[in-house]
């Protein structure tokens, strides 16, 4: 706490230093030349800052202020400059003194216009892609929203692909993202609270939730934690995530991130809270539980039986991902008794010429695999395929033929690699990637005993973990039977009668009971 206080002081001092002290900088002056001076001073050396003077009837001076590239200059010409310069003020519009009012009401043909009276608000507005208009003799300025910066089109998110389901994803523009949400939940209950974070970046952050479903204690906690953040800039939602998560030393993410508006919308309907951050397509959803780590969006867009089946597969993959290499090491070096004889012999046969112990062998291969994975992300696309071929040949075949690693080891590592991609949430899978190495060390030193120790430690950690007051392992531990409907098995949608105990606040009922379709029901309803 001490450190933060100090930092705050430094920031304050800076502000005072950079502004001249003889005039009240913050209020807009009626003298337009003073305003101009102040503005030019604050935008000193900002080459993208435009301040454009206009004279109406040869006397009244108007300044149009915007940041080049952020505001739509073309539209500005169309709707403001042209009528202003060629047509002038309409006649009989009253006194020149109220020109600002007139401008706002009649002249600026832009839908969103606000009036500000403080210099800092004006500057902020301009920096947020608005066009500022100050008029001589007025102590108010107009901020017209004319955002005109470049943005990416809406694309299918590449990290969370579904076979069936909506294909739109968030983009870097916050407004577009909220519109994607609003299109899904057309209710006034969907609230989007704005908050600005970042000393320099002044990033817009939106807390989205559904009023009436959300648990107020969680929402309040989100607000306080967000307000606590003091940071120079927020460039990605991860910047925020690290400030507001419960246990920073856990390998497991306690806040879910997603690029998919449908995931956010469905989470909101469950009573969760979403945090949208400008300039990044990744939204944060909280609270998160262990089980949401392997629920994919596709689960809800397939019929429930297949969804359940695939979830069970995924659960097995999750365990394979973390335990398989260590079990292999423990079995072959400590407990060969447990391996069926013929399998043991084929493992022994292929290990015959391998110079390293099994642990070292696994480490080598896992290291190479993770290396390939990392290289695959970094490599430019044309080179990527070449590297993957080399990787596959070198690791898969040449290493086995040269007798550096054994063939079963390649199978183990490859299976583990595939399994690690079976976890739908990337950042959740990362935790298991890392823990795999811990398990390997334990298995290499202590055998199955070590794996069991590691497993127990892992479970203890997971059970202790909380995300915004929600136990990470819920509803399995603590056990809430009603909520088990959407954990490993996914029951049909008409059976989701209640919202999750820990997420939803007041409104726990989700859908009325008795909607299971059946022929009998059809006749009755007729």
């Amino acid at each position, binding site marked *: 706490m001490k450190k933060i206080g100090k930092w705050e002081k430094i920031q304050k001092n800076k502000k005072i230093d950079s502004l001249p002290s003889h005039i009240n900088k913050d209020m807009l002056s009626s003298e337009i030349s003073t305003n101009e001076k102040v503005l030019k001073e604050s935008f000193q050396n900002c080459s993208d800052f435009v301040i454009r003077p206009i004279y109406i009837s040869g006397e009244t001076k108007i300044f149009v202020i915007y940041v080049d590239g952020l505001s739509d200059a073309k539209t500005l010409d169309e709707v403001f400059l042209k009528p202003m310069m060629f047509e002038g003020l309409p006649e009989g519009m009253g006194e020149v003194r109220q020109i600002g009012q007139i401008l706002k009401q009649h002249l600026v043909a832009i839908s969103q216009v606000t009036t500000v009276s403080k210099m800092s608000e004006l500057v902020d507005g301009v920096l947020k892609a608005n066009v500022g208009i100050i008029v001589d003799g007025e102590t108010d300025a107009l901020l017209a929203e004319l955002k005109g910066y470049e943005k990416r089109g809406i694309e299918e998110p590449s990290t969370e692909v579904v076979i069936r389901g909506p294909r739109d994803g968030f983009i870097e523009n916050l407004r577009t993202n909220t519109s994607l949400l609003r299109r899904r939940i057309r209710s006034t209950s969907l609230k989007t609270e704005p908050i600005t974070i970042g000393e320099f970046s002044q990033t817009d952050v939106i807390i989205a939730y559904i009023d009436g479903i959300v648990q107020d204690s969680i929402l309040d906690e989100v607000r306080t934690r967000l307000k606590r953040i003091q940071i120079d800039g927020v460039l990605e939602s991860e910047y925020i995530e690290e400030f507001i998560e419960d246990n920073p030393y856990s390998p497991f993410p306690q806040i879910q991130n997603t690029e998919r508006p449908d995931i956010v919308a469905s989470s909101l309907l469950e009573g969760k809270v979403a945090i949208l951050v400008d300039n990044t397509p990744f939204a944060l959803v909280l609270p998160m539980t262990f089980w949401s780590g392997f629920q994919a969006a596709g689960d809800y867009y397939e019929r429930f039986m297949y969804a359940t089946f695939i979830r069970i597969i995924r659960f097995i993959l999750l365990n394979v991902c973390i335990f398989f290499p260590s079990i292999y090491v423990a079995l*072959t*070096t*400590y*407990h*060969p*008794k447990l391996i069926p*004889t*013929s399998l*043991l*012999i*084929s*493992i*022994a*046969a*292929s*290990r*015959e*010429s*391998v110079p390293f*112990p*099994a642990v070292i062998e696994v480490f080598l291969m896992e290291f190479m695999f993770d290396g390939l994975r990392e290289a695959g992300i970094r490599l430019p696309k044309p080179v990527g395929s070449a590297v993957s071929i080399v990787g596959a040949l070198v690791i898969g075949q040449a290493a086995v033929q040269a007798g550096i690693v054994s*063939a079963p080891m390649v199978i183990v590592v490859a299976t583990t690699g595939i399994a690690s991609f079976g976890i739908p949430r990337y950042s959740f899978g990362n935790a298991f990637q890392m823990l795999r190495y811990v398990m390997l*060390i*334990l298995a*290499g*030193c*202590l*055998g199955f005993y*070590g794996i069991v120790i590691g497993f127990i430690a892992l479970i203890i950690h997971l059970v202790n973990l909380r995300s915004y007051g929600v136990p990470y392992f819920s509803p399995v531990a603590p056990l809430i039977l009603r909520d088990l409907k959407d954990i490993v098995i996914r029951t049909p949608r008409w059976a989701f009668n209640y919202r999750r105990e820990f997420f939803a606040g007041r409104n726990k009922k989700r859908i009325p009971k008795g909607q299971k379709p059946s022929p009998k029901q059809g006749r009755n309803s007729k």
Partner: protein
Amino acid sequence: MNRRLICFVIYSSLLFTSGCWDRVEINNRAIWIATGLDAIEKEGIQLTGQILIPSSMNPQNGGGGNGEKNFFLISAIGKNITDATQKIQMKLSRKAFYGQRRVLLLGEEFAKLGLKNQLDFTIKDPNASLRTDAFVVKKGTAIDMLNLSYPLENIPAEAPLKEHSQAGGMSDTSYLHFLKAVNSKGIRPSLPAIEIGNFQDGEGVGKKGEKSYQLTGSAVFDQDLKLCGYLNMEEYRDQLWIMEVLKKRSLTILIEDGNVSLDLDKMGSKVIPEISRNKNIKFTIVLTGEGAVIENNTNLDLTQPKNLEFMQNEFNKQYKKQVAHTITKVQTEYGTDIFGFGEVIHKQIPYQWRDLMNDWDKKFSDADVTVKVNLTIRRVGMSGPSLRK
């Protein structure tokens, strides 16, 4: 925070520096798949191990099909097993690993001398697998047996094991049963017996080198764990049936001038003990079985219920005689209760057992045994009457 970090480093270094690792890589283990024990006069016992050569079984190099043996035998003579093991280890470049030992062969001479002084090792060693099938090598030595390779099995020691399980015996739990019997007063141990024989039966066939293992029944032990005789295969099956171990069996009987075979798959048994006032012990053994007639070389048309019933009775009658004969043979010739009748009394009439257990072998020999066989023919095959009709 700093203290936590230091604690973490210290504790995690325990993992690597503790030094008492029992980690042994597979390529530093000699996979010992079968043990043979033979008696050597005066000097004690000869321990033989069958050890696999993994490199000869590498699937990438074409795998063992090139006529070379993929195992080798190693043996040593010692006062007891540990002594011999130690001597064997001097000849072995890798640590002998007993975890995969599935077969234990006892030479006939060794079994006759008695196992009492030699078996402790197999129970005490934590690495030794108790899922072992033990055999007595009838008319032979264990080392001869271990020297044979088996054309079907990559691991030759698996051949007797699989033969045993094909015969419906207890296969890899037989040694465990044996040990249980050793520690119980109401049952005397018996082990399956195996013999070296030719693959082809009959005159003039079978090259000299092509020897096979052949299950020949069971070896009966007495109270001192000394081999006292053998039962043949049919008798062994009767024994297993009474002990409710047998899972399948084919029965063949002669009726008039033809013969019939019944393939049983659901088999059960019940032993009912009865002790009269004058301390006469009586056992009633009810054997049940269900199955299909798979060969019918008689004139009987089994689609007729009358004939079916007749045949069922015929089976019951003939096998009642056969089982009774087996029991009488054990009672009179060997006088040791390999069926575990004593255990049945122990469980069902425990207060009487205390008086009986001390001289059980004799009482077993004197007991009255009544056998009842209740077979049910469920299916009579695909076609109706037999071809002879």
